[in-house]
């Protein structure tokens, strides 16, 4: 049980201490804290896979009076993903910050708060608790975007702030309405209560659910509510972009998924055409913008818009006959995209650092000069495109299975087209990287990566390889998710 307390409280603690520590000591503390987090997540995962899902009452006060935390397969897999990605992102950030003229001292405390929020979010079992954690995550994320203090980033952060507040506002409104209706915010208790709603309550419920879903769509950046994402993710520090794209966006979606599975799946099925439409639009238009973008990090950011589309597209399938493959697709997509996108942002960060400008056209010859970073970028791209062997392929496989089983053939075409478009924007970058610059002389003046950059590239590579390796983990993941999701 201690693992739960550690995983939530430790980041808050080390985050607060890091605020006061001298710069030299910050990183060792954070690193130790992150290792501890990883360890706790693994412990929780082992616990769930051997003994099944369980509920933990904070301070032994259970719902509705106290706070319940729910530990199941879905939660622990997200927890583990979060700890691993933030550990690697932190190592990367440490090396990255060393090369910056200014010490960005607030990064470490903010990372702590972000992690605390994320970890608590994944474990929360009631609507209000989810709101609080969502707000913590949102504010930490906005601050991280604003961290560099550049004008463009401040603007992006402000846009992000408005979107995230709007999103949580809508969510809170929905939660308040539900509380007014049923007098509880515990998901488990609500699930029993709304099973057979009477007629007036039904309408009320639908509105509430609508508010909650739209609020979360803002936070998860589902098209057309994605407008804040590209400048925020495209402009932030690479390690921040990685955390934001891999985890923060997923956190909002995670709540939708949780509620869909445990609370209102059958009611929300009404929204099926809408979600299909928006999901498909996100895939096609997000990919299209990624294809057109000039800046490398914009490409990666728009790719996130497209990849979120797959998640929402798969969501309504959970209420059809194709529930098992749909759930498999969603869980794998969250993890695979998280891993691959973090790898890609980290790789892109190095390429931008070296090419000093970040335009794709400046990447000529980087396959020769930064082979490792480019290789990591390409491997992450393989998973995003959904080519085998990779986690992205497994996700796509089950998404297509679910779509074919439930007979949505036009969406099959959308998913296949999305894969080809992803190939387009990934290989557009790689093609340029493979082309040597026209004059050889300028080639030699450009220096290859220095030592810390090389280490950073290896970190990106590590995550990219993990995204590939996820292609062999479909079965264990399915088993883990099945623990406790049956309810």
């Amino acid at each position, binding site marked *: 049980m201690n693992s739960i307390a550690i995983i939530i409280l430790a980041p808050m603690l080390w985050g607060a201490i890091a605020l006061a520590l001298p710069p030299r000591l910050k990183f060792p503390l954070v690193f130790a804290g992150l290792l501890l987090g990883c360890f706790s997540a693994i412990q929780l995962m082992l616990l769930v896979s051997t003994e099944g899902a369980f509920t933990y009452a904070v301070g032994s006060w259970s719902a509705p009076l106290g706070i319940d935390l729910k530990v199941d397969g879905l939660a622990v897999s997200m927890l583990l993903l979060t700890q691993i990605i933030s550990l690697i992102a932190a190592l990367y950030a440490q090396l990255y910050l060393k090369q910056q003229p200014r010490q960005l001292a607030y990064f470490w405390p903010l990372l702590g708060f972000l992690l605390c929020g994320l970890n608590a979010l994944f474990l929360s079992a009631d609507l209000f608790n989810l709101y609080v954690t969502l707000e913590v995550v949102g504010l930490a994320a906005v601050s991280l975007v604003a961290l560099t203090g550049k004008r463009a980033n401040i603007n992006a952060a402000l846009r992000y702030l408005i979107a995230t507040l709007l999103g949580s506002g809508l969510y809170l409104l929905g939660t308040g309405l539900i509380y007014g209706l049923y007098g509880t915010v515990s998901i488990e208790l609500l699930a029993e209560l709304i099973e057979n709603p009477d007629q007036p309550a039904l309408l009320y419920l639908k509105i509430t659910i609508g508010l909650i879903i739209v609020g979360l769509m803002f936070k998860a950046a589902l098209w057309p509510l994605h407008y804040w994402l590209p400048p925020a993710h495209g402009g932030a520090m690479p390690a921040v972009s990685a955390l934001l794209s891999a985890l923060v966006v997923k956190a909002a979606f995670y709540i939708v998924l949780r509620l869909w599975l445990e609370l209102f799946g059958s009611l929300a099925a009404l929204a099926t055409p809408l979600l299909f439409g928006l999901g498909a639009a996100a895939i096609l238009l997000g990919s299209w913008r990624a294809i057109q973008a000039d800046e490398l990090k914009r490409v990666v950011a728009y790719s996130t818009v497209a990849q979120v589309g797959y998640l929402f597209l798969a969501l309504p399938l959970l209420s059809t006959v194709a529930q098992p493959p749909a759930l*498999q697709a969603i869980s794998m997509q969250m993890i695979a995209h998280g891993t691959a996108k973090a790898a890609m942002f980290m790789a892109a960060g190095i390429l931008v650092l070296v090419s000093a400008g970040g335009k794709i056209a400046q990447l000529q010859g980087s396959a020769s000069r930064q082979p490792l970073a480019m290789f990591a970028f390409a491997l992450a791209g393989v998973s995003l495109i959904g080519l085998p062997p990779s986690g992205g*392929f*497994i996700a796509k496989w089950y998404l297509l*299975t679910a779509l074919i089983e439930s007979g949505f053939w036009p969406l099959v075409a959308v998913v296949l087209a999305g*894969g*080809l478009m992803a190939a387009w924007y990934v*290989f557009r970058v790689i093609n340029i990287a493979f082309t040597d610059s026209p004059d050889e002389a300028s080639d030699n003046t450009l220096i290859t990566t220095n030592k810390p950059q090389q280490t950073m590239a290896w970190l990106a590579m590590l995550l990219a390889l993990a995204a590939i390796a996820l292609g*062999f983990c479909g*079965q264990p993941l399915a088993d883990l998710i099945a623990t406790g999701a049956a309810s």
Partner: protein
Amino acid sequence: MSNGLWLVSLLLTSLIPAGIIFVLPERQVALRTTLNIFAAISKLAIIGMLLLEVENGATFRFSYTLGPSLEFALKADALALLFVTLSAILWLFTTIYAIGYLEQGHHRSRFFGFFSLCVTATVGIAMAANLATFFIFYELLTLATYPLVAHKGKASTLQGVKTYLTYTLCAGAVFLLGLMWLQTATGHSEFTQGGFLAANGEFTNWQLQLLFALLIGAVGVKMALVPLHGWLPKAMVAPAPVSALLHAVAVVKAGAFGIVRIVYEVFGIELSYSLGLLLPLALIASFTILWGSYRALFQDGLKKRLAFSTVSQASYIALGTALFGPIGTIGGLVHLVHQGVMKITLFFCAGNYANTLDVHNISQMNGIGRRMPITSLAFSIAALGMMGAPLTAGYISKEWLSEGAYAANMDWVSTVLWISSGLNAAYFLPILWRAWCKPEPSTWPQERIPRRGIKESYWLLLGPPAITAFLTVLLAIYADSSWSPLAWAKLIAEREYSNLPL
């Protein structure tokens, strides 16, 4: 299950070296070379063992669950081993050749890393035990060949690379559509002798025909069936060893092999026949044979001419598959091997001309036989083989194919074969005439490697084509021995048709 580990180790013998080579520093030539050769030889050793066992009727299978109802499965049946053996042997020669060819080149670690990965993918395609696994390796092959095709890194190569990617990735998407449809309806995609769709009532006839079109169309891109062949001449921007590998072993062959697997073990030859699918396939293959040869006539670039020749020759395999009956099957399968050996010789030679004398066009080849006799002799033997001249491997293939056509009551096919042989002669004989009968020019475009006695170029460049040209003859002379590809093809056909009354 435990014997399945042999199949995994067959993949690992090139996958692990690929991983190591990637991280090797550029200057570690000796280590890299040793590793390459050692890997190729250990792969051959495992294959030798497998050949013996499989001939005696043993079966090898490996499977790993990738997810619910998605299985990664490998098997070593007679058909798989035919292709595996071909790729492993030619990989060894191509590696040796590439070491010589890229002596002073850039990015050799990257090149040899992907080269090994490419062979891993080919071996995986050969041993895939279900369509899903086949697809996985098929896409891996696309990914592994991409950096090889783009290797030169010139702005001018980019267009060819883009075309190659567009064709192969779109084909991949179509393949995935067909595969997912099939897999969702039947719950598996295990290759079965006689075809697993034959016993399956899930699909109506038109659905089966559509499925066939999707799958064959998708693999047809890799094997360059007209009109899906557009990428192949453009992919000639690749260095010579890559072209050799792509045309003789990896990409084109993987496509042809895919057609064999899909017709025989997904649909089953009987079902394909009763659905009326074999005739259209035979027609497309025949058209491709003639069109490729016709276009080859007008190419002055030697590699371009060879590329169109590949378009034509690879379709012999599809044609053999489409001929209902064991004799046609044998012809197609044996050509899979024979075409590989002959085509790789031709590309080795083209690479030698380009690398030694900077000769890229046929119009520059006057008298080249005197300057480079060994290369030109090898080229001549392989070219004669392509025409189907007696005492070469090509003769054996064509003989069996025309016999197969008569047996399948498709006499017109043998006319196609005759016309094609005529066209082959029309585009190969002028080259030979130029090489041997015209006088040597006073200077070559650029003599990169000077002549030393009989050594017209580096030994590493001369050895491989000499050996494969020799093999071209051996394959014909010893066609009837029990260890020839022909004997092996007969074994495959025997097993494939064992449950059919013929």
